[in-house]
């Protein structure tokens, strides 16, 4: 079951590389949160049920509801509709994303040989998710897509930590998700300010005044 979910998750990464609408990026994040929710559900070890329930709720509320809500509001306030200039052509973007996924699967096979008792496919996919987030940040030019890329990286690290660190203390899990939430909130506020300060010319190209 987890394998199927992981495959769906990697398809969502491919979709991220194709889309140009900012709205659909955020929707993609919601899908990813739901998939992570189910992966956690099937992955859990019954002995620490409290933590599992907490992590499930936390994924759903923070990753699935609050973060998308903040991003959607930001998009609405700033009237961002579309990715203005996709930096790379579509075919190249999907080609590179597929390469990243293939790399993830290579890691999976390599990992399978060397280390037991860890879900190797989940390990590989989470590595490609992290790379995919970095890829989004490098390729896309808008600030909001950078924030989305950061969220994709966070999803990747979350999946990775699920494979390896089995029982994270509750307080610590709470700390991690609060950090992420506050980070997104702060980024949203900064994007708002940048929008007004830089005359709607939002995008990483306008942020070049500081240099030597």
């Amino acid at each position, binding site marked *: 079951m987890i394998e199927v979910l992981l495959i769906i998750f990697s398809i969502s990464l491919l979709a991220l590389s194709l889309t140009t609408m900012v709205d659909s990026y955020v929707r993609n994040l919601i899908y990813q949160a739901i998939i992570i929710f189910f992966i956690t559900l099937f992955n859990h070890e019954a002995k*620490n*049920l*409290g*933590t599992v*329930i*907490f992590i499930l709720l936390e994924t759903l509320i923070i990753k699935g509801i609050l973060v998308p809500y903040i991003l959607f509001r930001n998009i609405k306030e700033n009237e961002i509709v579309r990715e203005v200039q996709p930096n790379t052509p579509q075919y190249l973007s999907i080609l590179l994303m597929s390469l990243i996924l293939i790399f993830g699967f290579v890691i999976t096979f390599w990992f399978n040989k060397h*280390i037991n008792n*860890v879900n190797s496919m989940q390990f590989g996919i989470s590595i490609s998710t*992290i790379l995919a987030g*970095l890829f989004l*940040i490098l390729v896309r030019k808008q*600030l909001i897509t*950078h924030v989305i890329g*950061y969220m994709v*990286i*966070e999803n990747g*690290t979350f999946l*990775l*930590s699920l494979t*390896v*660190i*089995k*029982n*994270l*203390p*509750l*307080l*610590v899990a709470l*700390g*991690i998700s609060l*950090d992420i939430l*506050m*980070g997104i909130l*702060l*980024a949203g506020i*900064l994007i708002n*300010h*940048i929008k007004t*300060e*830089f005359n709607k010319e939002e995008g990483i190209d306008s*942020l070049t*005044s*500081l240099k*030597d």
Partner: protein
Amino acid sequence: MSLHELLKFQLWIWEFKVFETFIILSLLISLLILILRNNTVNYILLLFYGVFQLVFTFFVVKSFFKNTQSSSFFLIFDSKILDRFIYADKYTIFFIIITSILFFISSFSSINKVLFMKEKNFSLYCAFLILFFVSLFGVISAQNLIVMWVFVEATTLTSGVLIYQDKTRHSLEAAWKYLFICSIGIALSFVGIVFLSLAFNTSSLSFNDLLPLSKKANPFWLELGFGFILIGFGTKAGLAPTHAWLPDAHSEAPSQVSALLSGALLNTALLGIIRVLNILPIQVKNICRIYLLIMGIISLLVSSIYMLKSENYKRLLAYSSIENLGLISIGLSLGGIASYSSYLLIISHSLTKASLFIVSGVIKDIYHTTETKRVNNLLKFIPFAASTLALGFLSIMGFPIFLSFFSEIKLFYFLITNQKWLLLITVLFLLLVILFALSKNIFNMIFAAEGKYKASELIRLKVKKLNTVNNIQIFGAFFLIALALLLGIYFPSQFKEFILSLVSSM
């Protein structure tokens, strides 16, 4: 949540011990400041907090030295959950003393903001300054990798708000870059933590639990994990090549915040690297030290190149921070007496750089520019600030009788006795370049007569009544420099033993 866990949680809620009380009091004070919105009252509250945290630090240090035998001295922190994650060890003691003094001085010298800032902004500034200190405290005293990670991310968020206090275009850009680059870096360091957990094959990531397991751990994953952590925490520590945020953030933040960023934040990120290095087994550690050495040398190189180019004195100081952190990591990577020199340099750099940033803030207040060539003849206009700046310059470059001199001499001594000639020549050459770049700019600011850019009448008038506010600020800066000088002249033997104990456990 099982019943047992729930019970523990309730115990934690009800058993307010000293440490929790400190955190909760800090949060309450910052909340109060946010509500009050009166500049004078808020400043007094901030000062009160500055004194309060000094006293708290004093008691932590005192109780530590009372119970040096046991690692769990922490009778004062015996709450049920947090005691596994947060308590003070000798590294905590070393870094908390520096951070605490710096925080006191920066809160004290925030006095100029009382006059010029809007109520809303000033209350936000004070509240986040306190929150920033709490998160720094958390990083320093966290004894668990993930808890440390959480606090490091918290320092990014709180200081991100502080950088954007001047509400200018530049500070906005700097805050965005800082927030974004550091968040990505810290996310990558989380990957490193996961790899370490894979290597140790354990779910508890407390440093004490990991240390005995290190012999059995898988070296490949250890090395990979350390690599990611070095990149992640190295980003926060401002080590090149991931230093891009540092000059922007340091130059655009209010100067008191720059002082804290440079003197306290960079150290705490370095502490993360030190702690991880400590739990590695010796073979892996030797390889990882080479990575740290390489990053240190690149930092020296990059900072020397940019310092030659930079025309902004705050950015110049920021690059000098990169240089110092580079030297510190070179020392740490070599071990032995070189590590000892690094700890001395950490003290000296924190004190000096904080003071230099505060002075630069005063200069910026008067001249309304950060361009080096527009600031001339400081010695005539503002002699007190100019002499503090000059002393700071001497200290940062390691002139004799300053603490940094003894630190750098020890590093060179180590390099000579171990016959690392190539490294010695590289470091000396780069330091020479940096000395040239820094002295050219600073001397120009202090001594050169006004040339093309004559100081306007307005500035002259302003300088004449260089008000008490600025004098108070410079007094704080002078205090820090005096401390660095004093420690150079007389370094108590207890301090020496204490630092040697830090080095020996590396």
